[in-house]
């Protein structure tokens, strides 16, 4: 079986770890081998959270630079920061709604221009799918469902070794009951956004 390597980067609080565990559960449902690792040192204190998910027959739980098949970024500057995980054949999916680092707020850094950011990623990789996931999460009635919107987009690109139904069933198992409807709606909106971008 081919190995698929997915990197998810986010800012603490964006629900990266929940999204990763949904994908892990979906792999379990589909009977696909999976390893993953996460670095969430001080996520609650505004830092970056990175998950590496490896589907298929591999033992490693981390992904080296250049080895990601898909990079999913929940925050545009963080997507660009992680771009060296990609190679020329990688697919990148990114939210376009920025979360300003406090360093920018206090004048200790400049936030990248979003158009330039997209151009840079597009030039370097095989495909970029970029849209405002925060807006779609709001549309779904759950501003915290940015993670589910991006799961929808990730599922749409068709590189995961399991179906959208597997992911939705995993969402039912891993996310809170009272948010399931809005999460599923967010997932569908993300799925469609990726379709349109494709």
């Amino acid at each position, binding site marked *: 079986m081919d190995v698929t390597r997915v990197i998810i980067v986010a800012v603490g609080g964006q629900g990266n770890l929940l999204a990763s565990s949904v994908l*892990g559960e979906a792999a379990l449902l589909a009977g696909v081998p999976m*390893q993953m690792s*996460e670095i969430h040192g001080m996520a609650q204190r505004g830092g970056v959270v990175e998950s590496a998910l490896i589907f298929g027959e591999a033992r*490693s*739980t981390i*992904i080296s630079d250049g080895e990601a098949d898909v990079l999913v970024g929940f925050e545009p500057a963080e997507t660009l920061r992680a771009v060296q995980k990609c190679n020329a054949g990688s697919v990148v999916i990114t939210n376009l709604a920025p979360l300003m680092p*406090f360093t920018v*707020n206090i004048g200790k*850094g*400049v936030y990248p221009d979003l158009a330039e950011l997209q151009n840079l990623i597009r030039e370097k990789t095989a495909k970029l799918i970029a849209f405002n996931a925060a807006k779609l999460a709001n549309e779904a009635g759950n501003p915290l469902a940015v993670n589910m919107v991006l799961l929808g987009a990730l599922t749409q690109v068709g590189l995961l070794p399991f179906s959208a139904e597997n992911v939705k069933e995993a969402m039912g198992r891993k996310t809170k009951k009272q948010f399931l409807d809005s999460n599923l709606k967010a997932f569908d909106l993300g799925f469609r956004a990726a379709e349109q971008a494709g």
Partner: protein
Amino acid sequence: MHKLLTDNPGEKMLLLGNEAIARGAIEAGVAFTSTYPGTPSSEITLNFFQMSQESDLYFEYSTNEKVALEVSAAAANCGVRSMAVMKHVGLNVAADALMTLAYVGVKAGLVVLSADDPFMFSSQNEQDNRYYARLSGLPMLEPSSVQEAKDMLPYAFDLSEQLQEPVLFRTTTRINHSSGFVTLGNIRKRQPKGDFTKDPMNLVTVPAVSRNLHVKLLKNYETARKIAESSPYNFTDGSGTLGVICNGVSYNYVSDALEDLHATDRIKVLRIGFSHPLPEAPIKDFLMGCEKILVVEEGEPFLEEAVKAIAQEAKLTLPIRGKSKELFSRLYEYDPAMVKTNIAGYFEIPRKPTQPVDASDVPTLPQRPPTLCAGCSHRATFYEVREAAKALGVETIYPTDIGCYTLGLLPPHSAADFLICMGSSVGTAGGFSKVTDKKIIAFIGDSTFFHAGIAGLVNAVFNNHDLTLVILDNGTTAMTGHQPHPGVDMQRLNLDGYGQVSIEAVVRGVGVSHVTVIKPYKVKKSIEAIKEAIAHKGISVIISQEVCALYATALKLPKRKPFQITDKCKNHRVCMSELACPAFYVWNKRIKIDPVLCTGCALCAQICPENAILPLKKKKETVS
């Protein structure tokens, strides 16, 4: 029911490495567990804590790792299977207990888990704790995967019982914080009660006793080596006349590399999971069948040096390489591509490496370092200490300690000048005060104070050091995920049967006469109190009490109204430049406050020169 207590052997679950470890211990029938929390080990004992509330499993958050090991050592000497869990540097604290416990031994299985942190994702050093096995003479086990971590724990307990001595279980962050599918096994019945048989001539380590116990330890060592030589956790993969010897997560990178390089028929692998005492005979056999060896291990050349020694004794002259400028580093963690490159290079296997994209034209991105939370009380205390020192015109040195407040090292706080280990703030403060003429103001958290700060404080009283100790009491062990400590009111968590130790009573009890408790959100009063403490000759202590803002949310404590910057603002930006609270942002060249992030601590409102920061009239919108 807690998912790790599921009694359904054969069921497959997606588990975090630390959950798998906790489950493995449960399957082994562990009945007594203890820890001092520390990343990357903390989730293991969070699960013990939760399970202890719905079963007869005993768990305690001990004051520090030494105490954690001592309580478990006693339980294991009463015939109760026990486990003491800590991060790698925690084993330094517990080392005094460990070294002689190795002589005394145990009656029931005792596993001591050390969670090492190559690359220092959240640690002050990346020491390689395999050397504790060599130093103590105790057996060590090292898993390579999440499933294996679970499976190895019952083996570790059995081994400990067979040898009647503790077993060291070493993980690294990439085991603790990786997830995978784990097939559950049987849960052995717990025996939570034991009994103690007096045997002072074997259990009281006076010199005459210890001289015999050391002989026993060395005998055990030989037995352990024989067990290691037939252990299923030391095994060989593949075939060929080239060889790789590896351990832990390096085994995963080696396996994937050899698959990718189509080299499994030319390069064989010896995976060492029972890494002390080393299985000498199988290593010798492996070397004899090889022309060339590469040792792949993160950290120090622990295996490499031992393998070279074994080769020398066997008069083998084949090349054995590992750590070198051209190959592997002693620094940081390894990754699959780096291991593949080194294997291909060393064994001269041609390949086309995957090229990462060229990111040289990516503009410098703004950093996103972890920072003190919005409404963190440490921010208020740091500001007040700075203002007090400024008002008195004193030059300061700020020894600090291990906790969230270490983040105070960054501007604008710049409230951290020296740090080596848990408790070092107050100990080093004493030294600074004796040899410099500066004012020494040390910072320590509440949990860290109990862990290792009290002895330093007693020392300062006895030796009459001139310093101010600021104890940042936020009512929890915040950094590692809000674990309790001896100063915590456990009733708040609806838990009975705990005592509570008052930090103020401890400080006064050890003889500090100048003690002030401040509420850091009351800025003027706090600055005055700190000025008095700084002016005091000799030891003075400030206890700054305010519950951790994140913990307050978790406890559902009443919320304060968020603040806003009104039109009275003249854009001095004192709030931003002095506090840099993450709730601030710039919009149209003006500072604004994000009402979702603002906790209503009112610190900025009290320092605004125009009194332009006022509470929002509307009730805070809830988002979550």
